[in-house]
C-alpha cells in the first residue's frame, strides 16, 4: 500500500515542480516524471533499492536505480574520490563493462555530500548507453544511484539529482540509511 502510494507520488512528480539542482544550471523539461519499476537486479550483498523510469522531457527512457549501502568504511572522509564512485555506484549491476568519460564532480543532496561521474556503458546486447553514477555519504553509510539510458549524460545527471532532491526521495533515503 505504502509502495503504491510512493509510486503514485513518483509519477505525479514533475521535475520542474521541485527545487532546481544548483550544480547543474540547465532546466529540465516540465513534462518529465519518474515511474517506479520493480528492482531489476538479482539479490546481492546489499538489500534491493528502488528503480524508476523517466517518462517525457529530456530524460525520457532513462532508468534510475537508488539504494542505501550501510557499513561504508570511510566514515570520516566520505566519498573520497572518483575511484570510490566507480566502486560503489552500482554501475556493475548494469554491466561489468563501463568506462568513465571524465573526472567526476562534487554533488550534494540535502545534508549528504559526495560525487557524481559520467560513464559509457557497453551493454550485453552490444548497445552503447551512457550513465551517471552518484555516491553520497552520511557518516559511515552511503546512498548510491545509477542513471542509465541512451540520452545525454549531463541531462541524465541533472534529472536524477533533481529527483533525488525531492522531499519524498530524501525522506526515503534517510529512512533507508536508518535501516528501515
Amino acid at each position, binding site marked *: 500500500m505504502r509502495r503504491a502510494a510512493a509510486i503514485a507520488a513518483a509519477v505525479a512528480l514533475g521535475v520542474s515542480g521541485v527545487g532546481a539542482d544548483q550544480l547543474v544550471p540547465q532546466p529540465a523539461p516540465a513534462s518529465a516524471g519518474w515511474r517506479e519499476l520493480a528492482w531489476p537486479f538479482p539479490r546481492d550483498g546489499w538489500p534491493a533499492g528502488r528503480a524508476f523510469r523517466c517518462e517525457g522531457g529530456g530524460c525520457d527512457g532513462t532508468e534510475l536505480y537508488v539504494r542505501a549501502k550501510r557499513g561504508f568504511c570511510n566514515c570520516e572522509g566520505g566519498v573520497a574520490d572518483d575511484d570510490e564512485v566507480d566502486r560503489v555506484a552500482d554501475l*556493475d549491476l548494469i554491466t561489468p563493462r563501463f568506462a568513465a568519460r571524465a573526472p567526476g564532480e562534487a554533488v550534494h543532496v540535502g545534508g549528504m555530500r559526495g560525487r557524481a561521474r559520467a560513464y559509457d556503458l557497453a551493454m550485453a546486447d552490444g548497445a552503447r548507453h551512457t550513465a551517471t553514477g552518484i555516491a553520497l555519504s552520511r557518516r559511515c553509510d552511503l546512498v548510491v544511484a545509477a542513471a542509465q539510458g541512451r540520452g545525454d549524460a549531463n541531462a541524465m545527471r541533472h534529472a536524477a539529482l533533481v529527483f533525488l532532491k525531492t522531499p519524498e526521495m530524501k525522506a526515503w533515503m534517510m529512512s533507508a540509511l536508518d535501516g528501515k
Partner: protein
Amino acid sequence: MFRCVLTAAALVFFAGSALVHAQKQTIGAPPEASNMKLVGFNDLQARSAYQPTIHHQGDRWIAYIGHHGGTDDVPAPVNPMTGKAEPNGTSIVDVTDPAHPKYLRHLPGQEGKYESGGAQMVRVCDGKSLPKGDPNAVYMLRTFGSEAHEIWNVVDPANPVLITRIGGLKDTHKNWWECDTGIALLVSGAPDWRTRRMTQIYDLADPAHPQKIRDFGLPGQEPGSTGAVPTELHGPISTGPNGNRVYFGYGTNKGGILQIVDRDKLLNGPKEPTPDNLRYPEISRLPMSAFNGAHTTFPMLDMPVTEFADDKDGKTRDIVMIVDEAILNECGEARQMVWFADVTTETRPMMISSYTVPEASGQFCQRGGRFGSHSSNESMAPVYYKKMAFIAFFNAGVRALDIRDPYHPKEVGYFIPSITQATDKRCIPVEGGERCKVAIQTNNVETDDRGYIYIVDRANTGLHILELTGPARTVAGLPKN
C-alpha cells in the same frame, strides 16, 4: 497446586531476570566465561585496539598492540606516562608475567578518528632471523594510519627507534611479514590503483633498505583499468618458501574472495600490473556469498582428519579458515561468521563447515555494538595450531573452537570481558537521532607460544590475558591447571 503455581511464577521471574542480565552488560558485573579464565589485564590507556602481536624477546614476552584512531569524544587520549594527549598508535606491554602486564610505551600514530587514524597493524621480526637484518635488533613493522608503513627497532621496547618509512599511501591494513625471508606483503592503497587496499610486496630482509618487488591485486583494480572493480583486499597470509602459497582474503562483510596464489610466481613472475600478469600467479579463487567477506584467511595444511583415517585417499586435508568481519551494530547486516574451506584440490576449493555463536545464547543482537566474527589468532605455534582456534566475536567476546575435525568445528570455551568505565558506547540511527548502548567489542585475538590468549577491545576496554581451563585444555593437549 498453589505451590506449583508459585514455583512456576518464580521460574518465570528468574528466567526473565536472567534474560535482562544477558542482554545488557553492567559495570562491576563479572565476566561471562566457560573453560577460559582471566589471568591479567591492562587498560591500554583506553585506546581502541586492533592487532596484538606477542613476541618472545630474549627472556621477556612483549605484546605490541596496534590501535585504531581516537573517538569523537576523545580524539587523542592522555598518556599518563607523559601527561600529554597523544593520537592512538602502538601500545607496547611487557607480558612476561601475564598476571601483571607492565605498560612500557605508547608510540603515537597518525592523527585521526576511528579507521582514519592510529596505527592498526603490527608485526615483529628478530634481526637475527632476517637474512640481512642487524642481529642485535628487533624490528616492529607497523602501519601509520592510512598514509604509511613504518619499521622501528624495538630491541629496547620501552625506547623504539624509527628505522624507515614507506609513505605516500591512501590506505593501509593487515600486513604479513615473513621473518625468515624478509618478504613483506603490505596492504596498501597505492595512489593510482582503483581500490582502497591492494598488496605492495617488499623485500624487507634489510629493514633499513626496503626493496620494492611489485604491486599486486585482482584484475580490474590496477591503474588504467575500466569496468567493475573487484572486492578490495583485507589481508594475506603466506606459508613462506616451503609452503609456496599465499592466501589472500578480500572483502570485509560482503563479496568475500579467498584467493590462492603461488608465492614463487608472485615474487618472481612478470611484475608490470597488467591483467595477465596479475592473473599469472593465481591458482584459484573461492568466491563467497555476497553476504560475507574475508577478513582473515588462515591456512592449516596437511591436517589429519580422524574420520578419514581408513580411507585410501584424502586422509589429510588442506584447510583454510576464513573469518568474516561484522561491521554494523545490533545485527544490522547478514551474520558474519567463520567458514572452513577444504583446499586440498587447490583448483576446486570448497566450503565444508561453518561456525557462529548462537545469538540466543546471549541475546547478542540486543546487547549493543557489533555481533559477529572479526578475526582469529594467526600464530602457528604448535601449542594450538591445527587443534584450536580463537575467534574474536565482538560483543560475544572470544570463542575457543576445537578444530581438530575441521568438518565439524566445536566451541569448547568462551570469555566475554566485563565492561568498564572506559568502554565506549555504540550507537544506531533512530528516528531523529541515535540510540546508544555500551557492550564489550572483542576485536582481535592472538596467542603466544606458552598458550596464553590475548584479546583486545575495539570499544576501548583494553587487553585481557586469558588461559584455558577444564576440558578446553585437554583439546589443546595442555596439562591440567
